[in-house]
Structure formats: C-alpha cells, structure tokens
C-alpha cells in the first residue's frame, strides 16, 4: 500500500507543479495575446478604411461590451443612420468604427467565417458611411495559400467602391479557386444583406 501511495504522490506532485507552471505562463502571455488581437483588429480596420496611422479610432462591437475594450466618451452624432443592435446579425459580427477625435462614424465592418472544403476563411467586409464597399479583406484562412494569395491580388479590389446593394453587386464569375472565392462572395452577400437590414430601420 505504501508503494502505491508513493506512486500516486509522485503523480500528484508532477501534476501540481505542471499546473502551477502552466498557470504562470498563461498569466504572462494572456495580456500579450489580448493586446495583439486588439492591435490586429485595429490594423485591419485601418487597412479597410485607409485610415492614416496617427489617427486614432474606437470601435463598438455587437458581441463584447465596448466599455471593456476602449472607453467611448462623449455623445455619438445624432444623425447616424444606423442603430447599434443588441444582437449580432446571423453568422456575422457587426462592428462600428468611429474616429476617436470627434466620435464621428467612419463605417461598419462585418466579419464572417465560413467553412469550405479546403478549411475555413475569415473575411472582413467594410462598408463606408455613404453605402459603398470600402474594402474586402481576408483576415484568416486555412485554405490553400496560393489560391488565397491569387484572390487577394486579383479578385478583392473589384469590390472597392461598388454600392452595397444586393441587386447591383457584381462578382467575378471566372476564378480558378472556386471554393475559397465562393466563401468570400457568400460572406460579402451576407454582409450586404445585414447592412441593408440595419440601415433601413
């Protein structure tokens, strides 16, 4: 019995030490991970709306309490055409981007994630305040690297400047990488639908 107790005690000690070690490392890295994700997000938003580096932005997300991330002080402009909804549109994350200096709305970004036969694609669709598409960016992907690169280079820029209207939007019909591009167009369609639904209210 004593030897069994010793066996169990050794496992207990190893388990406890590794638990403590992992806790400490997690404690050190968690804020860095959080900060990195924040920076990444802001980087993507700046890229979509071509915001210069010295201009600071704040954003309001439909999933998280915005006060946790960046405090918004002052009043929002009254004549903004959208209402910040309580819940996200189905399958998308809706984020409102504001200029920090005067709290004016810059645009809306929709983030969608779709699974296809090659893996997953995460796409950010930015829509300007005048209703045109600002940019479409692939933020994360487990799809074939070459296809994604090709799409980023050739097939995302045609979206820029198009009016965000389900009837008018044009997609490229002939691309080599059908699955990846199909996922991108699905998310763009969803985002436009969500945008029109939101702005009608």
């Amino acid at each position, binding site marked *: 019995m004593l030897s069994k107790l010793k066996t169990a005690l050794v496992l207990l000690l*190893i388990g406890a030490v590794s638990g403590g*070690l992992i806790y400490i490392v997690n404690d050190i*890295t968690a804020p860095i*991970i959080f900060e990195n994700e924040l920076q990444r997000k802001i980087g993507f938003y700046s890229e979509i709306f071509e915001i210069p580096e010295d201009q600071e932005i704040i954003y309001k997300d439909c999933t998280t309490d915005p006060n946790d991330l960046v405090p918004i002080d002052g009043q929002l402009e009254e004549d903004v055409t959208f209402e910040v909804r309580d819940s996200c549109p189905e399958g998308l994350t809706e984020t409102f981007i504001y200029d920090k200096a005067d709290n004016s709305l810059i645009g809306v970004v929709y983030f969608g994630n779709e699974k296809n036969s090659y893996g997953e694609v995460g796409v950010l669709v930015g829509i300007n305040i005048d209703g045109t598409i600002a940019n479409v960016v692939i933020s994360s992907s487990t799809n074939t690297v*070459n296809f994604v690169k090709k799409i980023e280079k050739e097939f995302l820029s045609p979206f820029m400047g198009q009016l965000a209207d389900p009837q008018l939007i044009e997609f490229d019909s002939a691309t080599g990488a059908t699955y990846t591009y199909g996922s991108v167009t699905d998310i763009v369609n969803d985002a436009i639908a969500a945008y029109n639904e939101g702005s009608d209210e």
Partner: protein
Amino acid sequence: MSKKENFLKGFFKENPIFVFLLGMCPALAVTAVFETALGMGLLVIFVLTMSNIVVSMLRNVIPNDVRTPAYIVIIATFVTIVGMVSKAFTYDLYLALGVFIPLIVVNCLILGRAESFASKNKVLDSAIDGFGMGLGFTFALVVIGVFREFLSTGGIIWGEFLPFFVDQPVTLFSLDMIINLFNSDFVIADYALNMFSLAPGAFIALGIILALIQGKSARRIKKEIEIQKQRIVELKKVALAKKAAAAKLVKEAA
C-alpha cells in the same frame, strides 16, 4: 559514444523522419510552406530538449507503474507552454499550425526519446540528445518544406509566419528572377504545381524524398556487395594459384 557523436546522430544516421519514420503527422501536415515547417521544428526542439532534461532529472524518482502517464504530463506541460508563447509572439504561425501544436504531445519521437534515452542517461547527455534529435527533425521538416514550397509556388518566401528580421515578406528565391533575365513579364506562380501544397502532394513529395534517400543507400549497399564479391574472387584466385604452386612442388619433389 562521445558528446559530439551523440549530438550529430540525429541529422543523418538516426534522422527521426527519414530513417525512423517517426513524427510523420507534422511532416505531412505543416510542410506546405517552408516557414511553418521551420516553426514547427523550433517548437519541437524546445519541447524535446526540456522534456528530456526533466525526465532525466526525475528518472530515479518516477515509479515504473506510472512511467508513461508521468512522462506525458511532463511533455504536455511544455507543449502547453510553447502553445501559449507562440500564440503571444507569432500569432500567424500559431494559426497556421493549428491543432498540430497540442498534438506535439503525442508525437512518438518525444515520448520515444524520453523512454529510450532520457530515462536511462545523465542530464547533460539527455539534453544534448534532445537538442540534436530536435535539430534533425527540424532539418527533415525544412527539407520537405523547401521541396514542396518550391514546387508549388516556384519560389521561397520568408517573413509571412515568422515575422523576424523583416517587416514585409521577402522572396528569398524565385524562378522568376532567372527567367525574367530573358523574358520580362513572366510569373512562375501561374505555372507552378499547385498539387504539392494540397494533401495528395504531401504524400507524394515525402515519397519522392524517401525514395531518393533509399535509392542512394541501395546503390551504396550494392557497391559494397560488389566490392566484397570482387575481393572474394581475388582471394579465390590467390588460393588457386597457391594450390597450383603447391601441386607443382609436390610433382617436382616426386
């Protein structure tokens, strides 16, 4: 075995992937691009060295009954730590490797080294063994990664997943550079063999590399056998000549 031999054996003589066929899952899954292969290798080097050191330190404490669970806990701790660190500092690499970071735990190379080397040897030797084996593993991954990335894109790019030393991704080498000396608007990526970045290409690329290695060793063995045969033939000749001479002597004496 000297310390130097112990360190170098992982590269060629006992290369985990090319010779022992251990740790094949990452060798196929994360080698579509050279950089992810290198990143995976670096993580494995750290885990293998650290777990070898700790297992070797505790080799007299851990009871035999719970050897495997104890080793697994030690390895899993370091794997969790590298997972967190890579998420914090190389987020793109973390995303690209995905589920294969936690799966380092069940890489048979690491548990195998703990069982077969670290549990029987001193701490320093185990550390050297772990580091050398990890380097050998990384070397093999990088060879496969370079092979596949070159075939599937026609070039090698640095800086997309491991953002060290450069701000923007840099093309280290590309066939474009050579072809564009003669023909100005040529893009190799349009003619590249995309299959090698997909699942079937992984199997076939590894098959080709293993066949190259096996072919070389097969030829060497064939050569050795031939040399041995020749030596036997010569020995026979000498023996025959001796016999003939002896017979002659007998004859003359008679």
